[in-house]
């Protein structure tokens, strides 16, 4: 056998799983077939009293199911009857293992996730090594999937419905202590004692009957038909429906599987789960999420788009100019990755303040037990506050994170120039100013690039790598090496005002304004955005960003227009924001203090109070000069479609204009950076799943009804005409 090694020691058959063709063991058809053969061999061997299933991989038992196999199903229709049969065979094999008559112990030497934990559940005892990395659980839901090898049936029968639902639906992974406490495993042991402990249990106990196969078994906490069951299902239905807006088929399917299966004998329960598992696969959501959030994201995390042939560049020292919020975050993640950081600001006090903020963030993590005092000390020790550009000498990379002002940016670029060697690169963390223009201040425009981080930098994984006209491939490769060193994921974007993610996101906010001006009820504007899967609704975001900021942009545009001798006419949305500020003194959720220094109460599109917030009841009346009367409110479905379409269309325009060059980057980028709904798999996947011709047809009808912004770009029309899709 190639995967499972079989040996007998002290009356125990030890089945050691080591898939040499893969870095980790995964639950594949081949592996399971071998496992079955080994089980039968052990059952037939009179010398064998019990069976131990373990792994030959260091630190890993079985890491999960075979995702590649799932992805290979593609986006086409699924032969449900065939898949039901194939998955049924997996379930039968596990069922055979737990009813084979000899005790089976799972000796879990490390990571035991997904399919791996489902195998463990079909054993009679689970012993886990007591090591921090030995995570246990059923994380499938995190990828829009669900357990498909009996997990939704055995876990509730083992630990009770409520506990199991919580773990499965949130895809939680538990460390050893919690896994023991919640009953996912029976025993924790030191690594060296794993096999001996398993042997000992076989010798001393060796029970070969699962709890659910015993007479008078009852599900802990109450099984199907109990009041607790009904209450748990009722609550879980509402809370999950509320939280997912019905956008995540796997969440409903997990509940359905437990609801239908818990009362059945185990021999029949698996099929109920398989039906739901296949239902999840039949819906494009799971496969879309899997492709984008697992495979494509992995490419962004590994630097698949890094130019080939450029030697690896090790950033050992980085200079960060501007110790504000972004600068602090970039300093933090760089120092965490072992890079020496010069944190530079106008004066030393500002730079030191920046470092202090990093220290405070780390202290909070320390208090929560998420880091150690040693690490904190190490990180802070690598951050050197400074006000002297000479300290940038020897930096491999400088990132400027100063105000979004071309003059200031030009000044810091020039000031750094003399200190840097020719191999060093210079990056601007601008959120939208064209990189090609900013590079003009540099004596080495080839070495100039954009690195658009998102806030909070410690938590946001995505970085837009912006390539200007002059940026060299070597600089791009070096930027990638830095991104990978600080463990971020990157997408490559060509220079354009707003780059990619902000452009797409901007259309969402702007659609909210269009709806407001059309006279759509504010509650509907906000609720439909949430149900579309956007993390925050547009009016709520405007309040958070601050109406003052938006007002300033409009005023600047007015000034520019007047200076150019052009007539200025504010858009209705601009007029509404101007009126909120000037007539009603409403500046948003975090208003600036008044001119005399007294604080201003928060309030914008929303009223804010201790218990929460609600839309300003006067909004529609007070803004009536700019808001149309609308007796024909659109359905939430139409509003939802407008939000998704306007963003997808902008993404397609970015592709057409060469701002992005890879649809995988396009899909991953907006989900990770600006909260485009994850369940769609990204804008390009959304268009594919919608169907190119259907998308173009519906965009045309939105355009006819609501404005030219819905006009599909030529790229989409051509693709639709040729019957093409983005992935295929």
């Amino acid at each position, binding site marked *: 056998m190639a995967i499972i090694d079989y040996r007998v020691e002290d009356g125990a058959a030890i089945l050691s799983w080591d898939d040499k063709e893969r870095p980790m063991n995964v639950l594949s058809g081949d592996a399971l077939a071998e496992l079955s053969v080994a089980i039968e061999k052990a059952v037939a061997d009179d010398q064998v009293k019990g069976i131990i299933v373990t792994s030959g991989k260091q630190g890993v038992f079985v890491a999960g199911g075979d995702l590649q196999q799932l992805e290979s199903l593609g986006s086409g229709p699924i032969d449900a009857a065939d898949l039901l049969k194939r998955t049924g065979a997996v379930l039968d094999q596990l069922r055979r293992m737990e009813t084979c008559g000899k005790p089976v112990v799972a000796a879990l030497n490390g990571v035991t996730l997904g399919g791996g934990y489902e195998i463990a559940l079909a054993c009679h005892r689970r012993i886990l090594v007591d090591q921090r990395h030995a995570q246990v659980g059923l994380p499938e839901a995190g990828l829009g999937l669900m357990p498909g090898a009996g997990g939704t049936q055995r876990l509730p029968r083992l630990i009770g419905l409520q506990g199991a639902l919580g773990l499965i639906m949130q895809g939680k992974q538990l460390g050893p202590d919690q896994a023991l406490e919640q009953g996912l495993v029976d025993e924790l042991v030191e690594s060296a004692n794993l096999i001996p402990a398993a042997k000992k249990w076989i010798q001393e106990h060796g029970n070969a009957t699962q709890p659910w196969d015993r007479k008078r078994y009852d599900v802990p906490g109450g099984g199907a038909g109990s009041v607790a069951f009904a209450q748990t*299902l009722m*609550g879980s*239905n509402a809370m999950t429906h*509320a939280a997912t807006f*019905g956008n995540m088929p796997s969440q409903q399917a997990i509940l*359905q599987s437990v609801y239908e299966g818990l009362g059945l004998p185990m021999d029949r329960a698996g099929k109920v789960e398989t039906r739901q598992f296949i239902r999840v696969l039949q819906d494009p959501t799971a496969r879309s999420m899997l492709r984008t959030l697992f495979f494509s994201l992995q490419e962004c995390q590994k630097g698949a788009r890094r130019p080939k042939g450029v030697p690896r560049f090790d950033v050992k020292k980085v200079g960060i100019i501007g110790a504000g919020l972004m600068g602090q975050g970039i300093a933090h993640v760089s120092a965490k990755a072992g890079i020496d950081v010069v944190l530079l600001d106008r004066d030393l006090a500002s730079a030191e303040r920046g470092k202090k903020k990093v220290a405070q963030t780390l202290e909070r993590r320390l208090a929560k037990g998420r880091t150690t005092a040693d690490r904190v000390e190490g990180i802070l020790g690598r951050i050197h506050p400074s006000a002297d550009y000479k300290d940038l000498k020897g930096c491999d990379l400088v990132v400027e994170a100063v105000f979004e002002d071309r003059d200031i940016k030009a000044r810091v670029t020039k000031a750094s120039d003399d200190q840097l060697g020719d191999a060093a690169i210079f990056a601007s963390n601008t959120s939208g100013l064209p990189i090609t223009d900013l590079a003009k201040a540099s004596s080495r425009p080839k070495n100039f690039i954009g690195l658009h981080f998102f806030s909070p930098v410690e938590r946001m994984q995505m970085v837009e790598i912006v390539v200007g006209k002059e940026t060299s491939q070597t600089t791009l490769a070096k930027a990638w090496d830095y991104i990978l060193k600080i463990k971020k994921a990157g997408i490559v974007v060509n220079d354009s005002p707003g780059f990619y993610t902000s452009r797409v996101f901007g259309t969402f906010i702007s659609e909210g304004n269009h709806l407001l001006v059309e006279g759509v009820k504010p*509650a509907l504007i906000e609720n439909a955005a949430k149900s579309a899967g956007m993390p925050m609704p547009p009016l709520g975001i405007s309040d958070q960003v601050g109406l003052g900021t938006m007002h300033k942009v409009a005023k600047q545009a007015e000034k520019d227009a007047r200076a150019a001798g052009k007539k200025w006419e504010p858009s209705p949305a601009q007029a509404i924001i101007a009126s909120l500020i000037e007539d009603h003194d409403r500046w948003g959720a975090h208003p600036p203090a008044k001119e005399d220094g007294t604080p201003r109460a928060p309030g914008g599109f929303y009223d804010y109070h201790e218990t929460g917030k609600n839309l300003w009841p006067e909004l529609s009346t007070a803004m009536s000069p700019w808001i149309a009367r609308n007796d024909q409110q659109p359905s939430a479905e139409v509003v939802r479609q407008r939000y998704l379409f306007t963003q997808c269309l902008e993404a397609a325009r970015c592709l057409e204009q060469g701002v992005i060059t890879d649809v995988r980057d396009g899909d991953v980028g907006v989900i990770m950076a600006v909260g485009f709904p994850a369940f769609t798999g990204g804008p390009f996947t959304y268009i594919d799943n919608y169907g190119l011709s259907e998308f173009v047809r519906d965009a045309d009808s939105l355009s006819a009804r609501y404005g030219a912004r819905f006009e599909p770009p030529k790229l989409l029309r051509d693709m639709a005409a040729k019957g093409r899709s983005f992935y295929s």
Partner: protein
Amino acid sequence: MTDCFIYDAVRTPRGKGRMKDGSLADAPPLRMAKTVLRALPERSDFDSKEIEDVILGCVEPVGEQGANVGRMAALISGYDDSVPGVQLNRFCASGLEAVNVAAAKVKAGDVDLIVGGGMESMSRISMGAAGGAWSTDPELAWDTSFVPQGIAADLIATKYGYSRRDVDSFAVESQRRAAAAWEGDYFGKSIVPVNDCIGVTMLERDEHMRPGTTLEDLSHLKPSFEMMGRNFGFDAVAIQKHPDVEQIDHVHHAGNSSGIVDGAAAVLLGSRDAGRRLGLEPRARIVRSATVGSEPCIMLTGPMPATRKALAKAGMQTSDIDLWEINEAFSAVCLLFMEEMGVDHSVTNVNGGAIAFGHPLGATGAMLLGTMVDELERRDLNTALITLCVGAGMGTSTIIERV
């Protein structure tokens, strides 16, 4: 088609639906059913074998009121063995639906004399005891946006703009009218006291009422469904279905919603011929009834379409109805009904309703019908419409006319 006449209508007083002090709670629920079923042949002096079926509404038909309580009630009442029985469940309109189905059998000529009614012991069989898939089966719950009734009632109040003061004022008036009706002995003709097995009276008067309730009294009550709505996702589910609502204003509480009580009611229905043969005097006729389905999440807006349908089928207008009875499940349901149908409060629920008396689920519809027959006679008016909102998004309406 044969006309169907109402010959008699009786009901028990409503006992508090609580084990600790409900007056009807210390006898099996069949005791209430027996009380009303025995009264019908006794009051009109005919043999029970003349009755061709007993149709009883019951909403939690399990345990001691389970397994076809219609037949059990006929048997325990000493009806002739030839009298069959059946239980039906149209949730809150079960009692009225039982009358409607019974009437339809008469109109079709299948039977000549029949009993329709209902019963519910809410003290002994708690609400929800019958289970059901609506809230638990994910497929059903998600597709229909299931929320509990109280949340639906609060959604109605929010969506149609009824404030806490509006719903409380309606409740105060219900208590006032209920007390006045008892004071004036408007119910005397139809209420049959419930006696125990040794002939001692258990209850002879509705015991859930709180006469003299004021707005100030009600203002102290906490909303009943706020915690559930906010903490268990129900508000959010309701808002997803009704996205024009920003947040739900939880206005309903124990004082402006129907009370939990025990009770039973029975209505004697039959053809003109049957009445003549047995010497019974017809009191009113069933003109038309209708039941419709409506959006299940907001759930309780069925009375309007059901009423419109019944009126249309009868060729009548709202102006043709003299008195209106809408079950006081929740104040907002009644306020919306009056507003949408253009019906004045002065001719609606003239003797109070379930906010004061309580709502014994399976029995209420038949009780309201009886109340209306009495009141039409007392006021010497002709027509009445009885309607109830129904769980899972339905509504039932019945039009009656004095003869």
